[in-house]
C-alpha cells in the first residue's frame, strides 16, 4: 500500500494540520518507507490473539478514586496560558453563522 500524496493530504485534513505544498511529496516518501516497513506485521500469525490494551503486565486497571468534590484548577489559572481570551473564556473565531 504505497502512500501517495492524496493519502497524505487526506490524513493531514483529518489531523487538522496544514502542510506546505513543497512538504507533501517528501512526507509521502518518508511515510511510504515507514508503512512498507510496518507491513511485515502482516506476516505474524495472530489468529485468536487478543489485542493488548495497556502493557500486558499491568496492574489492576480502572482503579478509580472516590467521587468526592475537591477544588480544581481555578478559572483564572485555566485561562492564564490562553493565547486569546474574551468574556472570561477562551476566544476563538466565529464558527457558527448567526
Amino acid at each position, binding site marked *: 500500500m504505497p502512500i501517495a500524496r492524496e493519502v497524505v493530504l487526506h490524513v493531514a485534513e483529518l489531523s487538522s494540520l496544514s502542510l506546505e505544498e513543497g512538504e507533501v511529496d517528501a512526507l509521502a516518501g518518508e511515510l511510504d518507507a515507514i508503512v512498507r516497513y510496518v507491513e511485515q506485521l502482516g506476516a505474524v500469525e495472530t489468529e485468536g490473539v487478543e489485542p493488548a490494551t495497556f502493557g500486558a503486565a499491568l496492574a489492576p486497571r480502572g482503579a478509580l478514586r472516590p467521587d468526592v468534590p475537591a477544588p480544581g484548577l481555578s478559572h483564572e489559572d485555566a485561562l492564564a*496560558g490562553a493565547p486569546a481570551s474574551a468574556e472570561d473564556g477562551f476566544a476563538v473565531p466565529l464558527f457558527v453563522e448567526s
Partner: protein
Amino acid sequence: MTDALELGVVALADAVRSGKISATDVARACLARIDEKNGDLYAFLSTAPESLLESARAIDDKRARGETLGPLAGVPVALKDALCTRFAPSTAGSKILEGWVPPYDATVVAKLRAADALMPGKTNMDEFAMGSSNENSAYGPTKNPWDPTRTPGGSSGGSAAAVASRMTPAALGSDTGGSIRQPAAFTGTVGVKPTYGRVSRYGLIAFASSLDQIGPFASDVRGAARVLDVIAGRDPRDATSFESEPTDLERACERPVKGLRIGVPKEYFGEGLDPDVDLRVREGIAALREAGCEAVSIELPHTRYAVATYYVVATAEASSNLARFDGVRFGLRKDAGDLKSLYGKTREAGFGREVKRRILLGTFVLSAGYYDAYYLKAQKVRTLIARDFEKAFESVDAIACPTSPTAAFRLGEKSSDPLAMYLSDVCTLPASLAGLPAISVPCAAAPSGLPVGLQLVGRARDEATLFALAAACERAFPPRAPA
C-alpha cells in the same frame, strides 16, 4: 564548592542533612556548574535560579529549626521539559509550547519538593519526546559530554547530559520506547524505566499514554534507587498508577545476587549489534556470573517485530494526544480567518517535521480502512511480545542485553533517515511494549572511550531485583565521568 556535585545523590543528601554543607551552597554550586557547562552542552533549556535559591533557603531554615530533612535534602534534580512545573516554562521541546508556564505541578515535581530536593531547571529533549538523539528539539540539540560531536541520545538527552557532566547528580526523564535507557547508555549514567504504573504520569505532557513512564537518571545505582523510591506510588490523579507498599529500592541495592538466573536473549545479539558493544555487554554479564548469577540462553522470538509494532501503537496514541495543541487553550496561536484554518496553521507553524510525520502516520493507522490492518494488528503483536517475556520469566529472574546496538552516534549521522533512527531503538522497545521495568547501567567503556550500557529487564513490579543486579554490575564497573 562544585565538589558537592561529584558526591552522588546519597552522600550529598547525607551531607546536607548533617549540616556539613548547606542547601544554599549546593544550589549556588549547581548554578555555577550549569553556567560553566551549559553553553557548550545545551542540556538545560531553562533554569530557575530564584526559585532554586528560595527552595534552598527554605531547606536550610527547616534544618535550623531542628526539623528532619527529606531523603533528597539539597540534591539538585534536573527535570525533563515534558514535566509540568509552575516555576518554569514547560515546552516539551516544541515551539508550540514556547514560553508556556503550566498552572500546576506534575505529581513527581510535588514529590521531589516534599523530599526537599532542589530543582534548578528544565532539560532539553526531542520535541514531544519523539526522537532518539535530541536532534528533534525545536531549540537545538544537546551535545554528549563525552564527545560534543556526538548525540547524548534521546529523547531525555538533556537530563542524561546534565547528570553525565555532573551539573546535577540526578534528573528525571520520561521513557516511551527507550528515552531514559538509551541516553543513559550513551552518557555513562544509570537510567531507569519503571514498571508501567509505578510512577504517576499526572503532569507529564503525553506522547503515548500506554507506554509513557517517568523515571530517574543518576550518577550511580543507589542514587537512582533513592530518587525512584521518592517518586513512586499510586496517585488518584493517574488511574493507571498502581497501589503498592512503599518501595525500598535503595535497600534492594544491597541484596545478594548469588543464585539469580539471568536470561540472555539471542535475538538481541545478532545483526546490527556493534562488535565493541557486544563485547562490553558480554563482559557485563560475565561480571554478574562472577557475582554468583547463572546466565542462561533464552528466546524472545517476537523481538524483531517490536520496532514495527511500536511505531504503529505510539504514533496512533500520539496523534490523539497531540490533538490538544490547537492554538486555543495554551501555547502558540496563528490567527487565520476561521477556526479550522486557525487549527491547521497553528499546528503547521508549531510542530517540527518529526512530530508532523508521527501525527500523520498515527492518523493513518487509525483511519477508516486501515485500522484493522495496522493498529489492531500491532496491538495483537504487542500481546505476543508480552507473552514472550512472560514465558521467559517462568525460568529466569531477569534478562540482560544491550541497551542500544551502538555507542553514541554522531550528530547528523541518522537525522536524514527516520527509519534508520527508529531502528536504533530496537533493544529498548520490547520492554516498553510489555510494560516491564528496565534499567541501563554502565559497563566498561568501548575502545573509543565512549560509554556502553547493559540493559536489565525485570518482571512487572520487580524493580528490586533489577537494582540488586545493577548494583552488582556497578561494583565491577564503577561510575566514571567525562574529563
